[in-house]
Protein backbone atom coordinates (compact mmCIF):
# COMPACT_ATOMS: atom_id res chain seq x y z
CA UNK A 1 0.00 0.00 0.00
CA UNK A 2 1.61 3.25 -1.01
CA UNK A 3 1.20 6.51 0.83
CA UNK A 4 -1.29 7.96 -1.63
CA UNK A 5 -3.60 4.99 -1.40
CA UNK A 6 -3.41 4.94 2.36
CA UNK A 7 -4.39 8.59 2.44
CA UNK A 8 -7.32 7.96 0.10
CA UNK A 9 -8.56 5.13 2.29
CA UNK A 10 -8.18 7.28 5.40
CA UNK A 11 -10.12 10.13 3.82
CA UNK A 12 -12.86 7.89 2.50
CA UNK A 13 -13.23 6.17 5.86
CA UNK A 14 -13.52 9.56 7.54
CA UNK A 15 -16.39 10.54 5.25
CA UNK A 16 -17.90 7.08 5.62
CA UNK A 17 -17.94 7.28 9.42
CA UNK A 18 -19.77 10.61 9.28
CA UNK A 19 -22.27 9.48 6.64
CA UNK A 20 -23.02 6.21 8.42
CA UNK A 21 -23.45 8.02 11.73
CA UNK A 22 -25.85 10.45 10.07
CA UNK A 23 -27.92 7.69 8.48
CA UNK A 24 -27.99 5.80 11.78
CA UNK A 25 -29.17 8.89 13.62
CA UNK A 26 -31.85 9.50 11.03
CA UNK A 27 -33.07 5.94 11.38
CA UNK A 28 -33.17 6.29 15.15
CA UNK A 29 -35.06 9.57 14.78
CA UNK A 30 -37.62 8.02 12.45
CA UNK A 31 -38.17 4.98 14.63
CA UNK A 32 -38.44 7.20 17.69
CA UNK A 33 -35.61 5.42 19.46
CA UNK A 34 -33.82 8.57 20.49
CA UNK A 35 -34.30 10.27 23.82
CA UNK A 36 -35.37 13.88 23.88
CA UNK A 37 -32.17 15.17 25.46
CA UNK A 38 -30.08 13.37 22.86
CA UNK A 39 -32.23 14.79 20.08
CA UNK A 40 -31.47 18.26 21.35
CA UNK A 41 -27.78 17.48 21.17
CA UNK A 42 -27.72 16.55 17.48
CA UNK A 43 -27.07 20.04 16.09
CA UNK A 44 -24.59 21.00 18.85
CA UNK A 45 -22.69 17.77 18.16
CA UNK A 46 -22.33 18.78 14.51
CA UNK A 47 -21.14 22.23 15.60
CA UNK A 48 -18.57 20.82 18.00
CA UNK A 49 -17.34 18.35 15.39
CA UNK A 50 -16.83 21.24 12.97
CA UNK A 51 -15.08 23.21 15.70
CA UNK A 52 -12.78 20.29 16.49
CA UNK A 53 -11.96 19.68 12.82
CA UNK A 54 -11.18 23.35 12.31
CA UNK A 55 -9.09 23.68 15.46
CA UNK A 56 -7.24 20.55 14.45
CA UNK A 57 -6.14 22.45 11.36
CA UNK A 58 -4.44 25.04 13.56
CA UNK A 59 -3.18 22.86 16.40
CA UNK A 60 -2.48 19.63 14.57
CA UNK A 61 -1.66 20.52 10.99
CA UNK A 62 -0.19 23.97 11.50
CA UNK A 63 1.21 23.22 14.96
CA UNK A 64 0.19 26.42 16.73
CA UNK A 65 -1.57 26.22 20.08
CA UNK A 66 -4.70 28.36 19.93
CA UNK A 67 -6.72 28.94 23.09
CA UNK A 68 -9.24 31.39 21.67
CA UNK A 69 -11.15 29.32 19.15
CA UNK A 70 -14.48 29.97 20.87
CA UNK A 71 -14.00 33.64 20.00
CA UNK A 72 -14.41 32.90 16.30
CA UNK A 73 -17.40 30.75 17.09
CA UNK A 74 -18.88 33.69 18.98
CA UNK A 75 -18.31 36.08 16.06
CA UNK A 76 -19.94 33.60 13.71
CA UNK A 77 -22.85 32.94 16.04
CA UNK A 78 -23.81 36.55 16.57
CA UNK A 79 -23.27 37.45 12.91
CA UNK A 80 -25.47 34.54 11.92
CA UNK A 81 -28.19 35.55 14.37
CA UNK A 82 -28.13 39.18 13.25
CA UNK A 83 -28.17 38.36 9.55
CA UNK A 84 -30.93 35.81 9.98
CA UNK A 85 -32.97 38.20 12.10
CA UNK A 86 -32.46 41.03 9.64
CA UNK A 87 -33.49 38.86 6.68
CA UNK A 88 -36.58 37.72 8.54
CA UNK A 89 -37.77 40.96 10.11
CA UNK A 90 -36.21 43.52 7.80
CA UNK A 91 -36.39 41.91 4.41
CA UNK A 92 -39.34 39.64 5.05
CA UNK A 93 -37.57 36.51 3.91
CA UNK A 94 -39.47 33.46 5.17
CA UNK A 95 -37.52 30.66 3.46
CA UNK A 96 -35.62 29.20 6.41
CA UNK A 97 -33.16 27.14 4.36
CA UNK A 98 -31.98 30.09 2.33
CA UNK A 99 -31.77 32.21 5.47
CA UNK A 100 -29.72 29.55 7.21
CA UNK A 101 -27.31 29.28 4.29
CA UNK A 102 -26.85 33.05 4.07
CA UNK A 103 -26.41 33.29 7.85
CA UNK A 104 -23.80 30.53 7.82
CA UNK A 105 -21.85 32.10 4.98
CA UNK A 106 -21.98 35.53 6.62
CA UNK A 107 -20.91 34.09 9.97
CA UNK A 108 -18.01 32.32 8.32
CA UNK A 109 -16.94 35.41 6.40
CA UNK A 110 -16.95 37.72 9.40
CA UNK A 111 -15.12 35.16 11.53
CA UNK A 112 -12.62 34.94 8.67
CA UNK A 113 -12.14 38.71 8.79
CA UNK A 114 -11.59 38.43 12.55
CA UNK A 115 -9.13 35.63 11.81
CA UNK A 116 -7.13 37.88 9.49
CA UNK A 117 -7.12 40.76 11.98
CA UNK A 118 -6.06 38.49 14.84
CA UNK A 119 -3.71 36.39 12.76
CA UNK A 120 -1.52 39.32 11.70
CA UNK A 121 -0.24 40.04 15.22
CA UNK A 122 -0.64 36.54 16.64
CA UNK A 123 1.31 34.60 14.07
CA UNK A 124 4.41 36.69 14.71
CA UNK A 125 4.70 35.10 18.13
CA UNK A 126 5.85 31.63 19.10
CA UNK A 127 4.69 28.80 21.30
CA UNK A 128 3.20 29.70 24.65
CA UNK A 129 3.17 33.40 23.86
CA UNK A 130 1.03 32.70 20.83
CA UNK A 131 -1.27 30.63 23.02
CA UNK A 132 -1.75 33.40 25.57
CA UNK A 133 -2.45 36.00 22.90
CA UNK A 134 -5.13 33.85 21.29
CA UNK A 135 -6.58 33.43 24.78
CA UNK A 136 -6.50 37.20 25.20
CA UNK A 137 -8.24 37.73 21.87
CA UNK A 138 -10.93 35.22 22.80
CA UNK A 139 -11.60 37.16 26.00
CA UNK A 140 -11.58 40.49 24.15
CA UNK A 141 -14.13 39.24 21.64
CA UNK A 142 -16.38 38.04 24.46
CA UNK A 143 -16.03 41.35 26.26
CA UNK A 144 -16.75 43.45 23.17
CA UNK A 145 -19.73 41.27 22.24
CA UNK A 146 -21.22 42.19 25.62
CA UNK A 147 -21.21 45.86 24.61
CA UNK A 148 -22.78 45.64 21.15
CA UNK A 149 -26.43 46.45 20.58
CA UNK A 150 -28.10 45.70 17.26
CA UNK A 151 -31.66 46.37 16.22
CA UNK A 152 -33.63 46.07 13.03
CA UNK A 153 -35.91 48.95 12.18
CA UNK A 154 -37.80 48.51 8.95
CA UNK A 155 -35.10 47.57 6.49
CA UNK A 156 -32.36 49.34 8.37
CA UNK A 157 -29.92 47.54 10.64
CA UNK A 158 -28.79 49.70 13.57
CA UNK A 159 -25.55 48.80 15.28
CA UNK A 160 -24.35 50.69 18.31
CA UNK A 161 -21.77 50.37 21.02
CA UNK A 162 -22.78 50.63 24.68
CA UNK A 163 -26.09 52.24 23.75
CA UNK A 164 -29.21 50.13 24.24
CA UNK A 165 -31.64 52.81 23.04
CA UNK A 166 -32.08 51.77 19.45
CA UNK A 167 -35.24 52.07 17.35
CA UNK A 168 -37.08 48.98 16.20
CA UNK A 169 -36.74 45.37 17.24
CA UNK A 170 -33.63 44.54 19.27
CA UNK A 171 -31.70 41.57 17.89
CA UNK A 172 -28.65 41.79 20.11
CA UNK A 173 -29.04 43.26 23.54
CA UNK A 174 -25.53 43.77 24.92
CA UNK A 175 -24.83 41.60 27.98
CA UNK A 176 -28.27 40.02 27.70
CA UNK A 177 -27.21 38.59 24.36
CA UNK A 178 -29.44 37.67 21.49
CA UNK A 179 -33.10 37.25 22.31
CA UNK A 180 -35.98 35.57 20.46
CA UNK A 181 -33.77 34.05 17.80
CA UNK A 182 -35.56 32.12 15.08
CA UNK A 183 -34.47 28.52 15.65
CA UNK A 184 -33.77 27.49 12.08
CA UNK A 185 -30.79 25.15 12.46
CA UNK A 186 -31.44 21.57 11.39
CA UNK A 187 -29.57 18.33 11.84
CA UNK A 188 -29.22 17.94 8.08
CA UNK A 189 -27.62 21.37 7.85
CA UNK A 190 -25.23 20.33 10.61
CA UNK A 191 -24.37 17.15 8.75
CA UNK A 192 -23.65 19.10 5.57
CA UNK A 193 -21.52 21.57 7.52
CA UNK A 194 -19.45 18.72 8.95
CA UNK A 195 -18.98 17.30 5.45
CA UNK A 196 -17.93 20.73 4.15
CA UNK A 197 -15.44 21.14 7.00
CA UNK A 198 -14.02 17.67 6.38
CA UNK A 199 -13.81 18.31 2.64
CA UNK A 200 -11.94 21.59 3.16
CA UNK A 201 -9.53 20.30 5.79
CA UNK A 202 -8.79 16.91 4.21
CA UNK A 203 -8.26 18.42 0.77
CA UNK A 204 -6.09 21.16 2.19
CA UNK A 205 -3.89 18.70 4.06
CA UNK A 206 -3.33 16.65 0.93
CA UNK A 207 -2.57 19.63 -1.25
CA UNK A 208 0.60 21.53 -2.00
CA UNK A 209 -0.40 24.21 0.52
CA UNK A 210 -1.10 21.58 3.16
CA UNK A 211 2.31 20.05 2.71
CA UNK A 212 3.84 23.53 2.98
CA UNK A 213 1.92 24.13 6.23
CA UNK A 214 3.13 20.84 7.69
CA UNK A 215 6.68 21.54 6.54
CA UNK A 216 6.59 24.83 8.45
CA UNK A 217 5.27 23.03 11.51
CA UNK A 218 8.02 20.43 11.44
CA UNK A 219 10.95 22.70 10.58
CA UNK A 220 10.14 26.33 10.04
CA UNK A 221 13.65 27.45 9.22
CA UNK A 222 14.24 24.61 6.78
CA UNK A 223 10.90 25.29 5.12
CA UNK A 224 11.62 28.98 4.79
CA UNK A 225 15.03 28.30 3.34
CA UNK A 226 13.51 26.30 0.48
CA UNK A 227 11.30 29.26 -0.33
CA UNK A 228 8.06 28.55 1.53
CA UNK A 229 6.41 31.75 2.73
CA UNK A 230 5.82 30.81 6.38
CA UNK A 231 3.56 33.73 7.27
CA UNK A 232 1.34 33.20 4.25
CA UNK A 233 0.73 29.51 4.87
CA UNK A 234 0.29 29.85 8.63
CA UNK A 235 -2.19 32.63 7.93
CA UNK A 236 -3.99 30.42 5.44
CA UNK A 237 -4.48 27.66 8.01
CA UNK A 238 -5.50 30.13 10.71
CA UNK A 239 -8.06 31.96 8.58
CA UNK A 240 -9.60 28.82 7.09
CA UNK A 241 -9.94 27.48 10.60
CA UNK A 242 -11.59 30.73 11.72
CA UNK A 243 -14.07 30.62 8.82
CA UNK A 244 -15.10 27.06 9.66
CA UNK A 245 -15.42 27.97 13.34
CA UNK A 246 -17.57 30.94 12.38
CA UNK A 247 -19.89 28.74 10.34
CA UNK A 248 -20.14 26.29 13.22
CA UNK A 249 -20.92 29.22 15.48
CA UNK A 250 -23.66 30.51 13.20
CA UNK A 251 -25.33 27.11 13.17
CA UNK A 252 -24.95 26.83 16.95
CA UNK A 253 -26.44 30.27 17.50
CA UNK A 254 -29.44 29.55 15.32
CA UNK A 255 -30.17 26.40 17.29
CA UNK A 256 -31.20 28.24 20.45
CA UNK A 257 -33.81 30.90 21.05
CA UNK A 258 -31.47 32.92 23.27
CA UNK A 259 -27.71 33.21 23.31
CA UNK A 260 -25.31 35.20 25.48
CA UNK A 261 -21.66 35.92 24.77
CA UNK A 262 -20.77 34.24 28.08
CA UNK A 263 -21.55 30.96 26.35
CA UNK A 264 -18.27 31.26 24.44
CA UNK A 265 -15.93 31.55 27.36
CA UNK A 266 -12.37 30.40 27.60
CA UNK A 267 -13.71 27.03 28.82
CA UNK A 268 -15.30 26.38 25.44
CA UNK A 269 -12.03 26.97 23.63
CA UNK A 270 -10.45 24.53 26.05
CA UNK A 271 -13.20 21.98 25.48
CA UNK A 272 -12.58 22.02 21.76
CA UNK A 273 -8.86 21.67 22.42
CA UNK A 274 -9.63 18.63 24.55
CA UNK A 275 -11.50 17.08 21.61
CA UNK A 276 -8.51 17.67 19.37
CA UNK A 277 -5.95 16.31 21.81
CA UNK A 278 -7.98 13.25 22.82
CA UNK A 279 -8.79 12.49 19.20
CA UNK A 280 -5.11 12.55 18.37
CA UNK A 281 -3.40 15.75 17.37
CA UNK A 282 -3.43 16.12 13.60
CA UNK A 283 -5.88 13.24 13.16
CA UNK A 284 -9.09 14.57 11.61
CA UNK A 285 -11.14 11.41 12.04
CA UNK A 286 -10.00 11.29 15.66
CA UNK A 287 -11.25 14.85 16.19
CA UNK A 288 -14.64 13.94 14.76
CA UNK A 289 -15.04 10.90 16.97
CA UNK A 290 -13.72 12.60 20.10
CA UNK A 291 -15.96 15.63 19.61
CA UNK A 292 -19.05 13.47 19.14
CA UNK A 293 -18.22 11.12 22.00
CA UNK A 294 -17.31 13.82 24.48
CA UNK A 295 -20.42 15.87 23.69
CA UNK A 296 -22.63 12.84 24.27
CA UNK A 297 -20.71 11.62 27.34
CA UNK A 298 -22.03 14.27 29.76
CA UNK A 299 -25.54 13.52 28.44
CA UNK A 300 -25.09 9.84 29.15
CA UNK A 301 -23.70 10.65 32.57
CA UNK A 302 -26.88 12.52 33.37
CA UNK A 303 -27.85 9.90 35.95
CA UNK A 304 -24.84 10.95 37.96
CA UNK A 305 -26.12 14.53 37.55
CA UNK A 306 -23.96 16.28 40.14
CA UNK A 307 -20.98 14.08 39.65
CA UNK A 308 -20.79 14.13 35.88
CA UNK A 309 -18.30 16.97 35.54
CA UNK A 310 -16.26 15.35 38.30
CA UNK A 311 -16.25 12.07 36.40
CA UNK A 312 -15.41 13.94 33.19
CA UNK A 313 -12.40 15.61 34.84
CA UNK A 314 -11.12 12.32 36.25
CA UNK A 315 -11.60 10.54 32.91
CA UNK A 316 -9.73 13.35 31.17
CA UNK A 317 -6.75 13.13 33.52
CA UNK A 318 -6.65 9.34 33.44
CA UNK A 319 -6.80 9.24 29.64
CA UNK A 320 -3.95 11.73 29.38
CA UNK A 321 -1.89 9.75 31.88
CA UNK A 322 -2.66 6.46 30.16
CA UNK A 323 -1.93 7.61 26.61
CA UNK A 324 1.39 9.04 27.72
CA UNK A 325 2.42 6.05 29.77
CA UNK A 326 5.41 4.36 28.05
CA UNK A 327 4.20 0.88 29.03
CA UNK A 328 0.72 1.39 27.58
CA UNK A 329 2.18 3.01 24.49
CA UNK A 330 4.34 -0.09 23.96
CA UNK A 331 1.35 -2.41 24.35
CA UNK A 332 -0.80 -0.46 21.87
CA UNK A 333 2.07 -0.33 19.41
CA UNK A 334 2.48 -4.11 19.59
CA UNK A 335 -1.26 -4.54 19.20
CA UNK A 336 -1.33 -2.28 16.15
CA UNK A 337 1.56 -4.17 14.61
CA UNK A 338 -0.23 -7.47 15.18
CA UNK A 339 -3.42 -6.18 13.57
CA UNK A 340 -1.41 -4.92 10.63
CA UNK A 341 0.25 -8.31 10.19
CA UNK A 342 -3.15 -9.97 10.32
CA UNK A 343 -4.34 -7.85 7.43
CA UNK A 344 -1.20 -8.04 5.34
CA UNK A 345 -1.33 -11.87 5.38
CA UNK A 346 -4.21 -11.74 2.94
CA UNK A 347 -2.11 -10.17 0.25
CA UNK A 348 1.20 -11.99 0.22
CA UNK A 349 4.08 -9.82 -0.78
CA UNK A 350 7.51 -10.80 -1.95
CA UNK A 351 9.86 -9.45 0.62
CA UNK A 352 13.25 -8.46 -0.57
CA UNK A 353 15.34 -8.25 2.52
CA UNK A 354 18.69 -9.91 2.36
CA UNK A 355 20.61 -12.36 0.19
CA UNK A 356 20.10 -15.27 2.55
CA UNK A 357 16.32 -15.25 2.06
CA UNK A 358 16.43 -15.55 -1.68
Amino acid sequence: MNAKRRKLIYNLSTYAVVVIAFIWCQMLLNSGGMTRSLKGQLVPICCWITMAVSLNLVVGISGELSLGHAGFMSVGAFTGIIISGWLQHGMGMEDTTLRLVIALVAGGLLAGVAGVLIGIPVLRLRGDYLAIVTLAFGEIIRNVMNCIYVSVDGRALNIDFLNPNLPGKLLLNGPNGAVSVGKIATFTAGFILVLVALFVVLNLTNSRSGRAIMAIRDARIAAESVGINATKYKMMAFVISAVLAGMAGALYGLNYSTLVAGKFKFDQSINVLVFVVLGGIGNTLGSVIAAAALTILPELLREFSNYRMLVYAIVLILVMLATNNPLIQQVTRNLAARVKRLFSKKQPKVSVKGGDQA
Partner: protein
Amino acid sequence: MAFLSSLVNGLSLGSIYAIIALGYTMVYGIAKMLNFAHGDVIMVGAYIAFCGAQYWGLPPVLCVLCAMAVCTVLGVTIERLAYRPLRQATSLAVLITAIGMSYLLQNLALQIWGANPKSFPTDLIAFPNLSLFSGQLKVSGVTVVTVLANLVIMVALTFFTGKTKMGKAMRCVSEDRGAAELMGINVNRTISMTFAIGSALAAIAGVLLCTAYPTLQPTTGSMPGIKAFTAAVFGGIGSIPGAMVGGLLLGIIEILSRAYISTELADAIVFAVLIVVLLVRPTGLLGKQVREKV
Protein backbone atom coordinates in the same frame (compact mmCIF):
# COMPACT_ATOMS: atom_id res chain seq x y z
CA MET B 1 -7.71 62.40 44.97
CA ALA B 2 -10.08 60.14 43.05
CA PHE B 3 -7.21 59.25 40.80
CA LEU B 4 -4.93 58.52 43.74
CA SER B 5 -7.59 56.38 45.33
CA SER B 6 -8.00 54.38 42.10
CA LEU B 7 -4.26 54.03 41.93
CA VAL B 8 -4.17 52.61 45.45
CA ASN B 9 -6.95 50.17 44.58
CA GLY B 10 -5.05 49.19 41.46
CA LEU B 11 -1.93 48.64 43.52
CA SER B 12 -3.88 46.37 45.85
CA LEU B 13 -5.43 44.30 43.06
CA GLY B 14 -2.09 44.29 41.26
CA SER B 15 -0.37 42.93 44.35
CA ILE B 16 -2.81 40.03 44.45
CA TYR B 17 -2.22 39.35 40.76
CA ALA B 18 1.51 39.53 41.36
CA ILE B 19 1.40 36.95 44.14
CA ILE B 20 -0.65 34.58 41.96
CA ALA B 21 1.56 35.29 38.95
CA LEU B 22 4.61 34.25 40.96
CA GLY B 23 3.18 30.74 41.19
CA TYR B 24 2.61 30.60 37.43
CA THR B 25 5.95 32.03 36.53
CA MET B 26 8.01 29.83 38.87
CA VAL B 27 6.32 26.67 37.68
CA TYR B 28 6.70 27.74 34.08
CA GLY B 29 10.34 28.66 34.53
CA ILE B 30 11.24 25.39 36.16
CA ALA B 31 8.85 22.76 34.86
CA LYS B 32 8.16 24.49 31.49
CA MET B 33 4.45 23.94 31.85
CA LEU B 34 1.37 26.13 32.06
CA ASN B 35 -0.26 25.08 35.31
CA PHE B 36 -3.87 25.98 34.65
CA ALA B 37 -4.94 24.46 37.94
CA HIS B 38 -3.12 27.20 39.84
CA GLY B 39 -6.17 29.48 39.82
CA ASP B 40 -8.19 26.76 41.49
CA VAL B 41 -5.58 26.24 44.19
CA ILE B 42 -6.32 29.87 45.11
CA MET B 43 -9.98 28.99 45.45
CA VAL B 44 -9.20 25.99 47.66
CA GLY B 45 -7.00 28.16 49.86
CA ALA B 46 -9.77 30.69 50.26
CA TYR B 47 -12.28 27.96 51.17
CA ILE B 48 -9.97 26.48 53.78
CA ALA B 49 -9.46 29.90 55.36
CA PHE B 50 -13.23 30.42 55.23
CA CYS B 51 -13.86 27.11 56.99
CA GLY B 52 -11.18 27.92 59.54
CA ALA B 53 -12.83 31.19 60.44
CA GLN B 54 -16.47 30.17 60.12
CA TYR B 55 -16.68 26.56 61.27
CA TRP B 56 -13.58 25.74 63.25
CA GLY B 57 -13.31 29.08 65.02
CA LEU B 58 -9.61 29.48 64.46
CA PRO B 59 -7.82 32.79 64.96
CA PRO B 60 -7.06 34.60 61.66
CA VAL B 61 -3.35 33.80 61.61
CA LEU B 62 -4.04 30.10 62.07
CA CYS B 63 -6.66 30.25 59.29
CA VAL B 64 -4.11 31.59 56.85
CA LEU B 65 -1.44 29.13 57.98
CA CYS B 66 -3.93 26.28 57.69
CA ALA B 67 -4.86 27.35 54.16
CA MET B 68 -1.19 27.57 53.23
CA ALA B 69 -0.49 24.10 54.62
CA VAL B 70 -3.42 22.51 52.80
CA CYS B 71 -2.55 24.23 49.52
CA THR B 72 1.09 23.23 49.79
CA VAL B 73 0.15 19.60 50.27
CA LEU B 74 -2.40 19.89 47.46
CA GLY B 75 0.08 21.45 45.04
CA VAL B 76 2.76 18.87 45.73
CA THR B 77 0.23 16.04 45.44
CA ILE B 78 -1.09 17.31 42.13
CA GLU B 79 2.42 17.55 40.79
CA ARG B 80 3.33 14.08 42.04
CA LEU B 81 0.20 12.33 40.74
CA ALA B 82 -0.65 14.15 37.54
CA TYR B 83 2.32 16.10 36.23
CA ARG B 84 5.35 14.01 37.14
CA PRO B 85 4.32 10.98 35.03
CA LEU B 86 4.08 13.36 32.06
CA ARG B 87 7.56 14.82 32.37
CA GLN B 88 8.57 13.36 29.01
CA ALA B 89 5.22 13.96 27.28
CA THR B 90 4.38 16.78 24.86
CA SER B 91 3.56 20.14 26.40
CA LEU B 92 0.03 19.90 25.02
CA ALA B 93 -0.60 16.67 26.94
CA VAL B 94 0.56 18.36 30.14
CA LEU B 95 -1.62 21.37 29.40
CA ILE B 96 -4.72 19.21 28.97
CA THR B 97 -3.93 17.34 32.19
CA ALA B 98 -3.59 20.65 34.00
CA ILE B 99 -6.97 21.70 32.63
CA GLY B 100 -8.44 18.39 33.76
CA MET B 101 -6.99 19.05 37.20
CA SER B 102 -8.58 22.49 37.19
CA TYR B 103 -12.00 20.97 36.41
CA LEU B 104 -11.43 18.35 39.09
CA LEU B 105 -10.66 20.91 41.80
CA GLN B 106 -13.62 23.08 40.80
CA ASN B 107 -16.03 20.17 40.88
CA LEU B 108 -14.65 18.77 44.11
CA ALA B 109 -15.18 22.18 45.66
CA LEU B 110 -18.69 22.15 44.22
CA GLN B 111 -19.38 18.81 45.90
CA ILE B 112 -17.87 19.80 49.23
CA TRP B 113 -18.99 23.40 49.63
CA GLY B 114 -21.91 23.64 47.21
CA ALA B 115 -22.62 26.05 44.40
CA ASN B 116 -24.03 28.86 46.52
CA PRO B 117 -21.57 31.71 46.95
CA LYS B 118 -20.25 32.05 50.46
CA SER B 119 -19.56 35.48 51.83
CA PHE B 120 -15.99 35.53 52.99
CA PRO B 121 -15.40 36.99 56.47
CA THR B 122 -13.81 40.34 55.67
CA ASP B 123 -12.68 40.79 59.25
CA LEU B 124 -10.18 37.98 58.78
CA ILE B 125 -7.55 40.60 58.12
CA ALA B 126 -8.13 43.11 60.88
CA PHE B 127 -5.90 46.05 60.22
CA PRO B 128 -6.90 49.63 60.91
CA ASN B 129 -7.92 51.68 57.91
CA LEU B 130 -5.57 54.49 57.01
CA SER B 131 -6.68 58.00 56.39
CA LEU B 132 -4.23 60.17 54.50
CA PHE B 133 -4.16 63.84 53.46
CA SER B 134 -6.42 64.84 56.32
CA GLY B 135 -9.05 62.28 55.46
CA GLN B 136 -9.21 62.88 51.72
CA LEU B 137 -7.62 59.55 50.83
CA LYS B 138 -8.89 56.51 52.63
CA VAL B 139 -6.90 53.33 52.37
CA SER B 140 -8.49 50.17 53.73
CA GLY B 141 -6.57 47.89 56.03
CA VAL B 142 -6.79 45.03 53.53
CA THR B 143 -5.04 47.15 50.92
CA VAL B 144 -2.21 47.95 53.30
CA VAL B 145 -1.80 44.30 54.27
CA THR B 146 -1.93 43.19 50.62
CA VAL B 147 0.72 45.61 49.48
CA LEU B 148 2.91 44.81 52.49
CA ALA B 149 2.49 41.06 51.96
CA ASN B 150 3.49 41.51 48.35
CA LEU B 151 6.63 43.41 49.34
CA VAL B 152 7.61 40.82 51.95
CA ILE B 153 7.05 37.96 49.52
CA MET B 154 9.08 39.69 46.84
CA VAL B 155 12.04 40.32 49.16
CA ALA B 156 11.84 36.82 50.60
CA LEU B 157 11.72 35.18 47.18
CA THR B 158 14.58 37.27 45.85
CA PHE B 159 16.63 36.23 48.87
CA PHE B 160 15.52 32.61 48.52
CA THR B 161 16.39 32.23 44.84
CA GLY B 162 19.60 34.21 45.16
CA LYS B 163 21.15 32.93 48.36
CA THR B 164 19.80 29.56 49.48
CA LYS B 165 20.90 26.22 48.11
CA MET B 166 17.38 25.21 47.04
CA GLY B 167 16.82 28.55 45.35
CA LYS B 168 20.01 28.25 43.40
CA ALA B 169 19.02 24.73 42.41
CA MET B 170 15.75 26.13 41.10
CA ARG B 171 17.52 28.65 38.94
CA CYS B 172 19.81 25.93 37.63
CA VAL B 173 16.89 23.67 36.72
CA SER B 174 15.13 26.49 34.94
CA GLU B 175 18.25 27.31 32.98
CA ASP B 176 19.12 23.80 31.85
CA ARG B 177 17.42 20.80 33.35
CA GLY B 178 19.78 18.25 31.86
CA ALA B 179 22.92 20.01 33.04
CA ALA B 180 21.41 20.54 36.50
CA GLU B 181 20.74 16.82 36.77
CA LEU B 182 24.34 16.06 35.78
CA MET B 183 25.53 18.40 38.53
CA GLY B 184 23.72 16.28 41.09
CA ILE B 185 20.64 18.44 41.56
CA ASN B 186 17.56 16.41 42.38
CA VAL B 187 15.28 17.78 39.68
CA ASN B 188 12.12 16.10 40.94
CA ARG B 189 12.60 17.46 44.43
CA THR B 190 13.29 20.93 43.06
CA ILE B 191 10.11 20.88 41.00
CA SER B 192 8.11 19.65 44.02
CA MET B 193 9.56 22.51 46.04
CA THR B 194 8.51 24.97 43.34
CA PHE B 195 4.96 23.68 43.44
CA ALA B 196 4.98 23.85 47.23
CA ILE B 197 6.06 27.51 47.24
CA GLY B 198 3.72 28.46 44.42
CA SER B 199 0.74 26.81 46.11
CA ALA B 200 1.49 28.37 49.49
CA LEU B 201 1.59 31.76 47.77
CA ALA B 202 -1.69 30.89 46.07
CA ALA B 203 -3.28 30.32 49.47
CA ILE B 204 -2.15 33.76 50.64
CA ALA B 205 -3.45 35.26 47.41
CA GLY B 206 -6.76 33.47 47.89
CA VAL B 207 -7.25 34.91 51.36
CA LEU B 208 -6.27 38.42 50.21
CA LEU B 209 -8.45 38.21 47.11
CA CYS B 210 -11.51 37.06 49.00
CA THR B 211 -11.03 39.64 51.74
CA ALA B 212 -11.03 42.36 49.09
CA TYR B 213 -13.82 40.80 46.98
CA PRO B 214 -15.76 38.69 49.45
CA THR B 215 -17.78 36.30 47.29
CA LEU B 216 -16.45 32.79 47.37
CA GLN B 217 -17.63 30.10 44.97
CA PRO B 218 -15.97 27.20 43.14
CA THR B 219 -15.17 29.36 40.10
CA THR B 220 -13.72 32.22 42.14
CA GLY B 221 -10.16 31.36 41.19
CA SER B 222 -10.50 30.96 37.45
CA MET B 223 -10.71 34.56 36.24
CA PRO B 224 -8.03 35.94 38.61
CA GLY B 225 -5.99 32.90 37.59
CA ILE B 226 -6.22 33.81 33.90
CA LYS B 227 -5.49 37.47 34.66
CA ALA B 228 -2.49 36.55 36.78
CA PHE B 229 -1.27 34.24 34.07
CA THR B 230 -1.59 37.17 31.68
CA ALA B 231 0.38 39.24 34.17
CA ALA B 232 3.12 36.62 34.25
CA VAL B 233 3.35 36.65 30.46
CA PHE B 234 3.16 40.43 30.45
CA GLY B 235 6.22 40.69 32.69
CA GLY B 236 8.05 37.90 30.91
CA ILE B 237 7.09 34.39 31.96
CA GLY B 238 9.78 32.60 33.96
CA SER B 239 11.06 35.82 35.51
CA ILE B 240 10.23 36.52 39.18
CA PRO B 241 10.65 40.34 39.03
CA GLY B 242 8.69 40.17 35.77
CA ALA B 243 5.72 38.61 37.54
CA MET B 244 5.84 41.39 40.13
CA VAL B 245 5.97 44.18 37.57
CA GLY B 246 3.42 42.51 35.33
CA GLY B 247 0.98 41.89 38.17
CA LEU B 248 1.18 45.42 39.54
CA LEU B 249 0.84 47.04 36.10
CA LEU B 250 -2.06 44.81 35.16
CA GLY B 251 -3.94 45.59 38.37
CA ILE B 252 -3.42 49.31 37.95
CA ILE B 253 -4.45 49.25 34.29
CA GLU B 254 -7.56 47.26 35.13
CA ILE B 255 -8.73 49.53 37.94
CA LEU B 256 -7.92 52.74 36.05
CA SER B 257 -9.75 51.62 32.92
CA ARG B 258 -12.67 50.54 35.08
CA ALA B 259 -12.75 53.99 36.64
CA TYR B 260 -12.04 56.19 33.64
CA ILE B 261 -12.91 54.34 30.43
CA SER B 262 -15.60 51.74 30.84
CA THR B 263 -16.51 49.08 33.37
CA GLU B 264 -17.69 46.67 30.69
CA LEU B 265 -14.55 46.98 28.64
CA ALA B 266 -11.97 46.84 31.45
CA ASP B 267 -11.04 43.22 30.82
CA ALA B 268 -10.79 43.80 27.08
CA ILE B 269 -8.45 46.73 27.69
CA VAL B 270 -6.25 44.64 29.97
CA PHE B 271 -5.91 41.94 27.35
CA ALA B 272 -5.38 44.48 24.57
CA VAL B 273 -2.48 46.01 26.50
CA LEU B 274 -0.99 42.55 26.87
CA ILE B 275 -1.18 42.02 23.13
CA VAL B 276 0.45 45.36 22.38
CA VAL B 277 3.26 44.64 24.84
CA LEU B 278 3.87 41.21 23.36
CA LEU B 279 4.02 42.67 19.86
CA VAL B 280 6.65 45.18 20.89
CA ARG B 281 8.54 42.83 23.18
CA PRO B 282 7.66 39.26 22.18
CA THR B 283 8.99 37.77 25.43
CA GLY B 284 7.35 40.20 27.82
CA LEU B 285 8.68 43.22 29.68
CA LEU B 286 11.49 41.56 31.62
CA GLY B 287 11.70 38.26 29.75
CA LYS B 288 14.92 36.91 28.38
CA GLN B 289 15.33 37.45 24.66
CA VAL B 290 16.25 34.06 23.34
CA ARG B 291 18.12 34.16 20.10
CA GLU B 292 17.16 31.44 17.70
CA LYS B 293 19.91 29.16 16.48
CA VAL B 294 19.73 27.36 13.18
